[in-house]
């Protein structure tokens, strides 16, 4: 078996929430690891977007402020 180490950056998980967005030339925004604050941001940018609205309305939590 190959025992060579994989040479990649080893980044510890962030203590903060993280989402990633990719804005395409045609105006579409792709989201990865979307968190509630990220969804709130997208909702403000595009309040009529049905996809984001659906992801906003199910939340009873404020769990982006989880205890350690």
């Amino acid at each position, binding site marked *: 078996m190959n025992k060579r180490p*994989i040479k990649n950056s*080893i980044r510890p998980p962030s203590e903060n929430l993280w989402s990633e967005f990719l804005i*395409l030339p045609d105006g579409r925004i792709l989201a990865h*690891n*979307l968190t509630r604050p990220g969804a709130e941001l997208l909702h403000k940018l595009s309040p009529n977007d049905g996809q984001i609205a659906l992801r906003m309305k199910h939340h009873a939590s404020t*769990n982006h402020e*989880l205890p350690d």
Partner: protein
Amino acid sequence: MICAAPNKWSTDSYVRENQVFEQGNPRTQQSAPRSTLARERARLARAMLADCRFCAHDCGVNRLAGEQGLCHAGATARFFSAQVEVSDELELIPTFAVALSGCDLRCDFCITGASSWNPRAGAGFDVGAMAAKARAAWQNGARTIMVLGGEPTIHLPAALEFVSLLPESAKLVWKTNAHGSAQARELLDGLFDVWLADYKFGNDDCAARLAKVSGYNHVVHENLIWAADHSELIVRHLLMPGHVECCWAPVAEWLAGNLPGVKVNLRPGFWPTWHAARHAELRQPVLKPESERAIALARALNLNLIP
């Protein structure tokens, strides 16, 4: 039936001695609490690291002794993300999602490639601390707790230990590439409420070229059929540019023919990242005509698409 593990850690003998597996047993019919089952199986899974056959690569390496199989994972797990997210299926969100580092596949388009290909990425997986965070998230309104990767199958001991510390009533999601072995499935039987399984490639040539895996479809079919029979199943397909006819069409046809009515999430948000540029067709997002064609195929086959 219980499948005998092809190695010295036979799940068959473990069943007889410990009575912790019940054949085809859905969560609701379990006689033992989930936490107890998970704890027992975690112990077994840790011993099985001496002859690791958790995924279909069937390496048989001794991870306890430092040997590495194709996934390069060692005996301990690490994680690269743990947070409440809302980007998964609507019926599952908000979900507390724990992503374990390392994977047994090598998808060049992996959106978390740096962490998913490297089991040493991220931070050490402290099971107790993570379970406390998961419990807090669940108590604060997270609808589900999701274990993913990379691929969590390669970290079964840690994943099962994690499950053993979660509330019995929490809804648990096993997010997988569906490339696990029969042995892994036996260890997971009855512990997760939902299997959220990727079905990425509709033919083995694309699987070999883009993810360096052979015999892909046969393994995925086995896993999906088993998962549908043993838990709730949601199948995901990430639509890839240029792969509607060669990958999505056969996936859709197989699902329609073999798992009619199964929930399917067709995801058109392909994000060209990691090593996607190694493949000319993957250097771009999915264009609207391809998405429309994919959805039309799904509708023609009467697939149960979910958002």
